[in-house]
């Protein structure tokens, strides 16, 4: 009964949102925008659920003194500090909330992502050693595009940036377009299955 209600909701919402694209009635348009904003609010509540899920998991780890429980304390302290500062002190410029974002959160995130500069170099090294026709094409394209985007490439030869542009605008674009078309068709097919009630994995379980 409950699941049937869910499937009917998905079908009605999906059919309306898709058909509304072809309708110019103002009523349909404002209903479309209302449902979009509802979806945003529901997604926000889902984030809250996710946050509480993580908090519960780490409270459990602390409670049972599992390995690394002290790290869970660190994590929860981070959540607590940000929440208290954000709700009590505000989130505007000059607040402690913003200070932590600027001085701890943003730099740490950027450091984590920059770690990949090291790992990608070691992956590229292994890529160089795996010699097949395709990997040679991949590595050559990568090298030319990289050189074309930095001053060194132009210093080597003015042809390098032009070749790099050509690679991006012709063969890479062709493959990208085909992949986009494939993804687009796949998403349309999946969406139709959701609306028809054939795709039910979002209900969980099966």
């Amino acid at each position: 009964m409950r699941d049937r209600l869910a499937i009917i909701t998905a079908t009605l919402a999906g059919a309306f949102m898709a058909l509304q694209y072809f309708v110019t009635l103002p009523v349909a348009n404002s209903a479309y925008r209302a449902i979009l904003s509802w979806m945003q609010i529901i997604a926000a509540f889902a984030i809250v659920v996710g946050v509480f899920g993580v908090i519960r998991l780490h409270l459990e780890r602390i409670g049972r003194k599992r390995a690394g429980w002290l790290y869970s304390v660190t994590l929860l302290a981070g959540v607590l500090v940000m929440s208290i500062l954000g709700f009590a002190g505000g989130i505007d410029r000059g607040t402690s909330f913003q200070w932590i974002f600027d001085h701890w959160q943003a730099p740490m995130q950027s450091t984590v992502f920059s770690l990949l500069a090291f790992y990608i170099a070691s992956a590229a090294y292994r890529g160089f050693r795996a010699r097949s026709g395709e990997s040679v094409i991949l590595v050559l394209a990568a090298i030319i595009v990289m050189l074309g985007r930095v001053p060194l490439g132009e210093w080597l030869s003015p042809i390098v940036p032009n070749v790099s542009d050509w690679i991006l605008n012709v063969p890479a674009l062709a493959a990208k377009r085909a992949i986009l078309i494939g993804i687009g068709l796949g998403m349309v097919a999946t969406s139709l299955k959701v609306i028809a009630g054939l795709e039910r994995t979002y209900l969980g379980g099966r």
Partner: protein
Amino acid sequence: MSLLETTTTALLTLAIYSFLAGDNPFYKFAEHLLVGLTIGYTLVITLKSVIWPQAIIPMTRGEMPSLVPLLLGCLILLRLVPRWAGWSRISLALVVGGGAGVAIPAMLKARVLDQMAATANGVTSWAGWIILIGVLATLTYFVFTRAHRGAWGTSARIGRYFMMVFFGATFAYTVMSRVALLIGRLEFLMGDWLGILRS
């Protein structure tokens, strides 16, 4: 920025870079702190900039339609109660179904029809013909209901070569963006913190 401020940032940065030498407690501490701060940040921003202004405030003004998303949002919160968790599926169905509905015309237009139009209209030049061949060859590669043999197989193989060029270009951009991040962090460590860089 004062020295104390930059030092806390620098120590956290170094703790994360310590992972290059292998997993260690400093890295684990920084990692968990980062996840905690990010969760707290997301929670505050979500409540303050979505739920509060879009759901709570309209309700206090007595706007009846605003009760619907609030109710659906509360259904999602039931996920936290195992016995009633199933009710959250109704809200989820609205998001998934509505998203599917929005996706059909949008995806069809932006990802399929517009791409096909641009490819077809581009054949006024040599590059346009190469793009057309590349698109068709790559598409044949993705047809798995037919064996990749004979002419079809050749086309699929050409498609793979085009894709390798694309992956190479994407790889190049990833490398450059990650190196840009590394340079950003080094500029902070050596410039803002240690002050050994000429500006």
